[in-house]
C-alpha cells in the first residue's frame, strides 16, 4: 500500500477516497484464508507430535502425505468447478469407475506402460466430466442435480462392469504398485505428482485469460454472459477437467491400494467438497484458490490421522470436520460483514 499517501492527498469530492482501506481488507482476507489453514495445520501437527513423537516419524509423515494425495487432486478439480458457482458430486463415482477400469486394463494387458494407464484413466474421467458439463450447459439444469444423478449413474456403471468381482494386488504389475509407495528423498512420488497438478492448476487460474474467466463466471454469471465470455464452454471445460482429475486420482488409487472392487471412493465427494470449503473457496464461486483447496485436503487428512493418535474417539473426527466447515463458513461471513461495515461507513462519509 505504498500509494496511500498520494491517494489521501486527492482533492475533495474525487472518488477513490477511502478505497485503500477496502483494498487492504481484501488483501488481508486472501492472506488470512490460506495462512489460517496453514496455521491450523501446523498447530494440529505440533500438538499431536508433542503428545506422541512417533507422529512425525518418516513413515508416519509419508503415510500422511500419501493419504492427502488423492483427496488433494480431487480437491483441485472440485475447486475449479466451485469457483464457477457449480458443484461436482460425481467425482467419487468417477474415481471408482476409473480405479476399477485401471485394474481391468492391467488384468487384460499387464504390459501396458504406466503413462498409458494414467492417460486412459484421465480420458475416461474427462469423458464422464464431459457428460456432466454437457448436461449442465445444454439442459441448463443446476449442477447439483445433474451431478447427483451422475453420481448414481457412474457408480451403477462401475457395479455393472465389476459384477461383484474384486481385483487383487497380485493381479497388478509390480512396477505399477511400486509407484504407489515409491519415494524420492523421502517424499512419495504420488505426492510430487499431486503437487505438480496443484501448482499447474494454480498457475493456470491465476495467469491465463480463460482461468480468470472462470472466476468471472462464478462472481456474476449474467455479467459474464454480457461481457461475451463463453460461459457454457468454460463451465463444460471445468467439469471435464474435474472429471479428468478424478479419473487420474482413480489410477493413483489403484496403484496405492492394489485391491479394488466397485466401492472405491464411495462417498468421497462430500470429503472433497469439505476440503475445498475449508480451504477457503467460496461455495458461491468467484473466489478462493486451488492452493487453499489442497491445503484443506491435507488438513482434513491430518485430522483423520491425528485424532486417533491423540486418543480421541473416531466419532469426534467427523464432528471435528463438521466444526471446521462451520468455522470456515463463519469466518467468511464474519469477514464479509466486516467489509460491509467498512464500506457502509465510507458511504455515509462520501
Amino acid at each position, binding site marked *: 500500500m505504498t*500509494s496511500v499517501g498520494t*491517494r489521501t492527498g*486527492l482533492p475533495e*469530492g*474525487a*472518488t*477513490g477516497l477511502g*478505497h*485503500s482501506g*477496502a*483494498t487492504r481488507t*481484501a488483501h488481508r482476507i486472501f492472506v488470512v484464508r490460506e495462512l489460517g489453514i496453514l496455521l491450523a495445520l501446523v498447530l494440529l501437527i505440533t500438538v499431536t507430535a508433542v503428545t506422541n513423537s512417533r507422529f512425525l516419524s518418516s513413515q508416519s509423515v509419508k503415510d500422511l502425505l500419501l493419504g492427502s494425495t488423492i483427496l488433494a487432486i480431487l480437491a483441485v478439480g472440485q475447486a475449479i468447478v466451485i469457483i464457477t458457482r457449480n458443484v461436482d458430486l460425481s467425482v467419487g463415482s468417477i474415481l471408482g469407475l476409473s480405479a476399477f477400469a485401471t485394474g481391468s486394463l492391467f488384468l487384460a494387458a499387464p504390459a501396458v506402460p504406466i503413462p498409458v494407464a494414467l492417460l486412459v484413466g484421465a480420458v475416461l474421467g474427462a469423458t464422464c466430466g464431459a457428460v456432466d458439463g454437457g448436461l449442465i450447459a445444454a439442459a441448463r439444469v443446476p449442477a447439483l442435480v445433474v451431478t447427483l444423478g451422475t453420481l448414481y449413474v457412474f457408480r451403477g456403471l462401475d457395479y455393472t462392469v465389476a459384477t461383484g468381482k474384486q481385483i487383487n494386488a497380485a493381479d497388478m504389475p509390480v512396477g505399477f504398485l511400486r509407484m504407489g509407495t515409491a519415494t524420492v528423498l523421502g517424499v512419495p512420488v504420488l505426492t510430487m505428482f499431486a503437487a505438480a497438478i496443484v501448482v499447474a492448476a494454480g498457475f493456470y487460474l*491465476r*495467469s*491465463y*485469460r480463460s482461468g*480468470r*474467466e472462470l*472466476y*468471472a463466471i*462464478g*462472481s*456474476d454469471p*449474467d*455479467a*459474464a*454472459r*454480457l*461481457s*461475451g*465470455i*463463453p460461459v457454457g464452454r468454460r463451465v463444460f471445460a471445468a467439469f471435464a477437467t474435474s472429471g479428468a482429475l478424478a479419473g487420474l486420482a482413480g489410477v493413483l488409487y489403484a496403484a496405492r491400494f492394489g485391491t479394488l472392487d466397485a466401492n472405491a471412493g464411495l462417498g468421497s465427494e462430500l470429503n472433497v467438497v469439505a476440503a475445498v470449503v475449508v480451504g477457503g473457496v*467460496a461455495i458461491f464461486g*468467484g*473466489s478462493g484458490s486451488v492452493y487453499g483447496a489442497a491445503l484443506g485436503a491435507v488438513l482434513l487428512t491430518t485430522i483423520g490421522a491425528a485424532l486417533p493418535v491423540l486418543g480421541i474417539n473416531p466419532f469426534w473426527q467427523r464432528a471435528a470436520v463438521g466444526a471446521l466447515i462451520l468455522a470456515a463458513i463463519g469466518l467468511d461471513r464474519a469477514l464479509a460483514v466486516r*467489509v*460491509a461495515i*467498512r*464500506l*457502509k*461507513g*465510507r*458511504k*455515509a*462519509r*462520501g
Partner: protein
Amino acid sequence: MPEPMLALSGVSKSFGAVAALRDVHLELYAGEAHALVGENGAGKSTLVKVLAGVHTPDTGTMTLDGAPIAFSGPADARAAGIAVIYQEPTLFPDLSVAENIFMGRQPLRGLRRIDPGAMRRRATELFTRLGVHLDPDRPARGLSIADQQLVEIAKALSFEARILVMDEPTAALSGVEVDRLFSVARSLRDAGAVVLFISHRFDEVFALCQRITVMRDGAWVSTDAAKDLTVDQVVRRMVGREVSSLYPKQDTQPRDVLLDVRGLTSHGVFSDVSFTVRGGEIVALAGLVGAGRSEVVRAVFGIDRYDRGEVLVAGERLPPGSAAAAIAAGLALVPEDRRQQGLVMALSVERNATLARRWSLSHLGILRRAAERRDAGTWTRRLQVKAARLSDPVSTLSGGNQQKVVLAKWLSTKPRVLIADEPTRGIDVGTKAEVHRLLSQLAADGVAVLMVSSELPEVIGMADRVLVMHEGRLVREMERDRATEESVMFAATGHAGTGHGDAT
C-alpha cells in the same frame, strides 16, 4: 449528410406473442450524442440488447460504416466497437477493478500469460484520462454505483469503443457525478464517437444530446434535432397523449403530528436527526446519494437499529428495531430497491399485493385464496396495475407496474404513515404522474407521507415541506413556497449557511 456510422432499419423482435420492437429505424452519426427516450416498455432496453448482441433481431438489417453486420453474441458487438453500460452494473464483485476492465482482453506477456503490471498501468492511465482516482487493485465489491459506472466507461475506453450506449446511467447518480459522467461523454463525442443516451430525465437529455429519438410501444415515433423540440413535445410523443400534470399536488390542511422522530442517531451513518410529519402532509427528504436518507427511513421503520433517539407514531413510542411493531402502528415503507426489497419477484402479482396483510386475510392461520384474490383485485384496479393476469409472476411486469404492486401491498394495510423511498426511480413519465397523483390523494385523505427523492423537480413539485440531509445530518428544512431546486441543491451539497432555514 454523411453516411451514418451505425444504421438500423426495419428491425423487429418478438418474444413469444409480445412484439418488443416493431420496424425500428435508427441512424447514428459519428460525433453525435443521441438520446433515446420512451416510456418503460417502449422497447428501449430491447433495442439496447440488439445493439449489444444479446438479442438477434427477427427481421431488419444493421449496417456499420455502410457494411451489413450481424452479431451472434456480445463478443461480436464488442469486437465491432460497441460498448454498453447497462442500467444494472455488470461488474464482477470478486475481481479487481483492473481485471473488470480488461476481462477477456488482459495484456499478455510470454507464454500468453496475463501481465498484471501492464494491466494495472493501463487501468491507471484510463482513470487518469477520465480524471478520476480509483485503485485498480481493489475489488469491485463495495464500489458506489457512480464508481461502478466509471469502471464500465474505462472498459469502453480500453477497447476504443466507437459507439457508447448508456442505458439510464444517471438514475442512481448525484449531481456532481452526473456532471462528471457528462464531461466524459462529451469528450468521447467530440473525439468522433457516438453516444447513445437513454434517460427519463429531460434536462439531462437536452443538456447532452443533439438529436432525440422517441419510441412508443416498441415502434419508432420520431427523430429530431434537440434544438427543435421542447420537453412538452417530447413527453407528448412518448405517451401519445397529453400529460395533464406531472406533479398534481393538492393543497391540504396539515392535521395532527403522526410521525415524530427525535434525535435519531446511528454512529457513523447519521446523527441527531429530528423531524415531524403531520397527517395530510407530504414531506420530502432530499440530499445527495449517500447522505444517509435511506438509512434514516430504514431506522424509522425498524429495519435497522439505531444508537440514540426515538420514533413516535401518533404519540406512541415505537420499539426500536422492530418492523413488525412499525407495521402494527400503521407505518408502511415502499423501499428504494423494489426488486430486492419490495417484491418477491417469483411470486404472483396477487400474492405480492397481499403479502403485508396475509394474517388478516387468513382464517385459523390458513390463507384464504378467494379473499386474497378479491383483495388483490381491489387494489390493483385502484392503482391501474397493467398485468395480463393477477396470477402472473410479478417479474413479468414493467418497472412502473411493479412499483404500483408495491404501493398496492402497503396501501391495503391502510397506513397512517407512508414512507416512500425513491418512489418513481426508473419508471416512465405516465406512471410517474400516476404515482404522484396517488401520493397526493393519500395525503388529502389524512395520511402522513414521507418521501425520499433524488429528483429535484419531484421534491419541489410534490412536497409541502422539504428536509435536506448532508453527510448524515439534517441541514435544512424549507416550506413549500421557499424551496427551489437551487436552494435544495445548495443545502444538499453542504452550503447550508446561505439561507435562513429553520433547521431543527
